[in-house]
């Protein structure tokens, strides 16, 4: 018999309500938001083979270009990361990681881009990842398993060279670290629209703010580069779309 005044029933009700309150707060702050962008919608997409996509990407990329990516699917992300020694290769950890991370990214309503790289030339991509500044090869495996857009900053060639040199220096010195706390605060700020302006140290960044830090002359709508999210890089005033692989097809400048 269910007696609401019995001690064990009271405990059950308390902890059930606590759980529901937490779920409510999670969705209050981090509910998924849909994002559409006219710039991406209006591109002339083509349906071409994966081999051609890889060939065109390697031909068109220039050092200093910024690459934003998102996995094609749960499976493709899992298959792609198997090439790296990683704790996420465990299936249970990967399940929790993938869904939680995607939930957080979706909550920003920023086009669901997971990561940002800077292209260094010679098929190398530099980025700030969990193991600090890393270099990754741009392979066919990458172009097959990820949707991506390539953005070319509207700056001089010298600025692009400086950005590449700075990224090389960061890779050698490893002075910049990935901050989970700042990532959480940036996502919260963007997801809720609450301007909290966390005091972020210059060497404690996340992937998009790292890419932004390489282009000090760009103005991200008056925003401090340390608070930049992927969508701030994706702005026609500061970058031009060179390549895009989305659900609709593949776009490239002819």
């Amino acid at each position, binding site marked *: 018999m269910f007696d609401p005044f019995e001690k064990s029933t009271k405990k059950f009700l308390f902890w059930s309500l606590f*759980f529901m309150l937490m779920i409510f707060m999670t969705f209050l702050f981090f509910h998924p938001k849909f994002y559409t962008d006219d710039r991406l919608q209006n591109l002339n997409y083509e349906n071409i083979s994966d081999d051609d996509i890889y060939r065109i990407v390697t031909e068109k990329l220039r050092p200093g270009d910024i690459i934003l990516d998102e996995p094609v699917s749960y499976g493709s992300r899992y298959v792609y990361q198997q090439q790296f020694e990683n704790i996420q290769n465990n299936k249970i950890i990967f399940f929790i990681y993938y869904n939680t991370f995607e939930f957080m990214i979706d909550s920003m309503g920023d086009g669901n881009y997971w990561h940002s790289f800077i292209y260094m030339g010679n098929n190398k991509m530099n980025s700030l990842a969990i193991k600090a500044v890393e270099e990754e090869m741009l392979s066919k495996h990458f172009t097959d398993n990820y949707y991506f857009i390539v953005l070319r900053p509207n700056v001089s060639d010298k600025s692009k060279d400086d950005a590449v040199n700075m990224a090389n220096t960061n890779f050698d010195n490893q002075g910049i670290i990935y901050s*989970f706390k700042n990532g959480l605060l940036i996502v919260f700020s963007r997801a809720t629209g609450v301007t909290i302006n966390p005091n972020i140290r210059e060497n404690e960044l996340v992937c998009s703010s790292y890419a932004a830090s390489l282009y000090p002359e760009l103005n991200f709508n008056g925003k401090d580069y340390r608070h930049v999210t992927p969508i701030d890089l994706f702005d026609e005033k500061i970058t031009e779309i060179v390549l895009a692989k989305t659900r609709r097809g593949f776009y490239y400048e002819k």
Partner: protein
Amino acid sequence: MKNRLSIIQIVPFASKIAVVISIIISITLIFAQGTHQGITFNFQLSSMSFLALFLGFIVVYPIIFLLIYLVVSILNRTFLKPK
């Protein structure tokens, strides 16, 4: 052999454990930094640390609770006899 636990007993048990684990994970998360040597910890509090701790907790807690609830329920059904 003990009798099977009811949902009224499992929920508070799972929830208390989930609270403890979630707080530990959240604290770990806000002090964790990704460096080339792996994950390191910088135990410096800033003004936003408590907000980050709270945000970490509300994201992590439901996942941990569901996992523990699932595990306890399975163990309960497997090893304990029905009343």
